[in-house]
């Protein structure tokens, strides 16, 4: 159990204790934890030479080795991470030129996600936003525009619960996660943000980090009301479903889509968590509506369109696909 030394931070209902590496993206815990109060995670430097050998796993890649309760990740020229037992992240800096920020970026993206999976938590790849004590989760593959959408919603009074990694409890609540947004140069500029004032996510990259006062964040777990799969809409579409929120009505389609949006399915498999994960997804699907969200291209058009939507209710009230689309839906999963 880590000592209370002022390095305590809190996210996903856990206390994170990292005495050597400061991780400013994780919110500070205002109250010092009492022993046994909340589960704690230790984050500490370690020499990978001391890590015991891991037998090759079926889902390993040259950069990733996994066994039950043990995941090793190598990020070329940045560092190595070992996540064990759902309560420890060990890190190693590849060389002195690697900044703390470089380490934090990959630690928060991959190591934290692996740890949550080890704890048996349901982790989705997306953003969670809160309004009126309810949450929506917007999911999509890398590059789909999740962060842009999250920032646009924040401009419209939503509060950010979690970015990138979204953890949902068995009783259907979204836990406050990492309250930051990473915006690409073009999106940040289109929102009228002053790029000079924003820190890049890593030195030299045209992608910026919004955190602290730059985001409105929610700090309490709230019930999940709706799930959205986002995709970019096209200008010249003749398809009537392409410009409206469409409920995914087929149970099979919903299950496959959700499975594909779980955070890093390879981690889930390699860590032996596929069974529990499947059950958690099925439970989620049975209680929360899933819909596709076609985002208009262009920030202004997207903001205008979002103004007219009631995302807390839309997934549940939206119609399913038009008959011609149902065939498509079957083959496109």
């Amino acid at each position, binding site marked *: 159990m880590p000592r209370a030394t002022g390095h305590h931070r809190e996210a996903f209902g856990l206390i994170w204790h990292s005495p050597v590496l400061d991780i400013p993206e994780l919110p500070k815990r205002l109250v010092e934890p009492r022993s046994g109060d909340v589960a704690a995670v230790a984050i500490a430097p370690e020499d990978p030479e001391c890590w015991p050998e891991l037998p090759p796993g079926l889902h*390993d890649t040259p950069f990733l080795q996994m066994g039950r309760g043990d995941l090793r990740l190598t990020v070329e020229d940045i560092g190595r991470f070992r996540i064990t037992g759902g309560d420890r992240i060990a890190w190693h800096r590849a060389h002195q030129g690697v900044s703390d920020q470089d380490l934090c970026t990959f630690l928060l993206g991959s190591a934290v996600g692996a740890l949550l999976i080890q704890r048996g938590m349901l982790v989705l790849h997306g953003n969670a936003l809160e309004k009126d004590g309810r949450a929506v989760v917007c999911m999509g593959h890398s590059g789909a525009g999740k962060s842009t959408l999250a920032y646009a919603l924040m401009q419209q009074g939503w509060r950010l619960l979690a970015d990138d990694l979204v953890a949902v409890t068995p009783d259907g609540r979204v836990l406050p996660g990492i309250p930051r947004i990473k915006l690409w140069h073009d999106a940040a500029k289109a929102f009228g943000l002053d790029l000079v004032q924003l820190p890049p996510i890593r030195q030299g*990259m045209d992608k910026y980090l919004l955190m602290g006062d730059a985001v409105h964040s929610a700090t309490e777990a709230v019930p999940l009301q709706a799930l959205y799969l986002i995709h970019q809409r096209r200008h010249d579409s003749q398809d009537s479903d392409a410009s409206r929120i469409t409920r995914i009505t087929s149970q099979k389609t919903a299950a496959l889509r959700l499975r594909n949006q779980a955070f890093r399915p390879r981690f889930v498999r390699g860590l032996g968590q596929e069974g529990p994960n499947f059950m958690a997804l099925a439970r989620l699907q049975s209680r929360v509506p899933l819909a596709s969200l076609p985002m208009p291209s262009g920030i202004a058009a997207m903001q205008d369109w979002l103004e007219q939507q009631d995302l807390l209710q839309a997934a549940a009230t939206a119609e399913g696909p038009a008959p*011609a689309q149902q065939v498509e839906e079957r083959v496109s999963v």
Partner: protein
Amino acid sequence: MSSPEPYWYLASYPKSGNTWCRVFITELRRLAGLDSAEATAAAQQEERELRLNRDLATGSIVSSRHWLDDQLGIDTSDMSWAELDKVRGRVGHQRAVYAECLRYHKVHDAFVSPDSAAQPVVPVEHCRGAVVVIRHPEDVAVSLSHFFSWDLERCVAFLLNEQAALCRSSKRGGQQVRQFMGTWANHVNSWVDQQQIPVLLLRYEDLLAQPEEHFGRLTGFLDLPSEPALIRQTVANTCFEKLRAKEEEEGGFHERPDGCERFFRSGRSGEGREQLNADQLAQLGDAFSSTFQQFGYEVSTRVHI
């Protein structure tokens, strides 16, 4: 690690017949009964997405961010293009979790990039070879112009640009990572001259003129059934008119890429010679003369019609 499965690359400069070859392979496997109806449907869906996405996003293109994220275990949008090119060739070849039809990888990258330190940008371990499809750059210019809605001058400049790349902006996200190509000649030579994996060179013009012979070379190289009757039938089912008709038919309920009127537009060869001006033809001829010679392409002068 899972046991290695055979895989091949279909490498080409954009708009040179790569999708045509992939459609051919899918259809041949369907006719030969090599794939289940489900696998064929998945592959066809993938082809459709290939054509319908302006940035050519697809599950099995080697530059897919989704695939790289899965293999590397990180969010690749946290890395610079230079950092990525150093690792891409070493990602190994694990089957992407939940993805189908990964045997024939489409790739538009040049074999190496200035950032990859002379190492291949694509994995080569256990790779059985690369089918390199080339097309006369004059015709590529015309096709690019329709696909990207660029004028011909810009397309010619792109073919000649030593830094040319797809998805090269570092200022926005996207479903693919940057794909360095350099000039058209650099791209072709990077694949043909490399010594690490076997190469089958196919010219788009030959696939058009003698489809059975040259698609037969393709099936032989890919260890696919090569009976003449099967190839004849597949060629007939995937001829340009059929693909175009299919695209029209699908247009009714499918989205088309912004600005691009249709993917299977003309397919003809010789359009470049008719549409490019004398100066543009000369620029391509001068810059690529040795490569033209090597692959039996003529340098065009302006044809008056």
